[in-house]
């Protein structure tokens, strides 16, 4: 079963992160690289991407004639996706375990951020759910 683990943050949260020292950022990324390596070796990592900064986010709707109408204004409280991990695991508990590893990533001074990670199952697609 596939799960997606979503790491999100507000613009204010991202600004806070930008104030981290270089060594704190490096320690955090070392943690993520190590986890990615483990997931790859276990055959559980399907895809993983980090996203560009929220300042560049656009929201697009189809206007008249189907042409795109773009907008870049979001509410202050908007949670932006910062990155995701798509994993293929045997049980939801394993997905939660991986999410906890992400959550335990070191922040400033090496203290765990304990940031919340949203865990969502992927629709198996083909049959029942939407057809």
């Amino acid at each position, binding site marked *: 079963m596939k799960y997606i683990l979503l790491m999100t943050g507000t613009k204010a949260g991202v600004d806070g992160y930008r104030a981290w020292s270089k060594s704190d950022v490096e320690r955090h990324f070392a943690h993520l690289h190590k986890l990615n390596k483990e997931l790859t070796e276990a055959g559980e990592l399907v895809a993983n991407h980090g996203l560009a900064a929220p300042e560049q986010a656009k929201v697009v709707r189809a206007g008249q004639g189907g042409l*795109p109408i773009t907008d870049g204004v979001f509410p202050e409280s908007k949670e932006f*996706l910062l990155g995701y991990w798509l994993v293929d695991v045997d049980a939801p508990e394993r997905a939660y375990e991986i999410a906890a590893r992400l959550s335990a990533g070191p922040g400033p001074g090496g203290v765990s951020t304990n940031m919340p990670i949203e865990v969502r199952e992927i629709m198996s697609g083909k049959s029942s759910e*939407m057809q």
Partner: protein
Amino acid sequence: MKYILMMNTMKAGAGVPNWPKKDLQAHVAFMMRLNKELHDSGEFVLAEGLSFPDQAKLVRAGKDGLPITDGVFPEGKEFLAGFWIVDVDSPERAYAIAARASAAPGPGGAPLNMAIEVRQVPAGPPPEML
């Protein structure tokens, strides 16, 4: 350049499973056609639909690193319903694909004109993070 196109929904808006079967099928057929077009043009990287928000969990590491799961979210929370990652030549092309997805048919076949969030996916972490 890669972009992620995200369909977000409010929990209250998760009425999609209650659409008449015909409308649901037309919606899914539209999405499958869009995916096929993106495959054919070589722009498709990845697309997934997520299970409904009532199954969402929020996970944090507890003191011992073990997961603490919670299923309570604020009322106004946006949930990711599905996403595409596309590899395109320009942001404008990403916006054009987003507009196509936005116009997916809803109940009665009318275009939903839903908001699609478009974000660039950098090839790797930003230089300051390496």
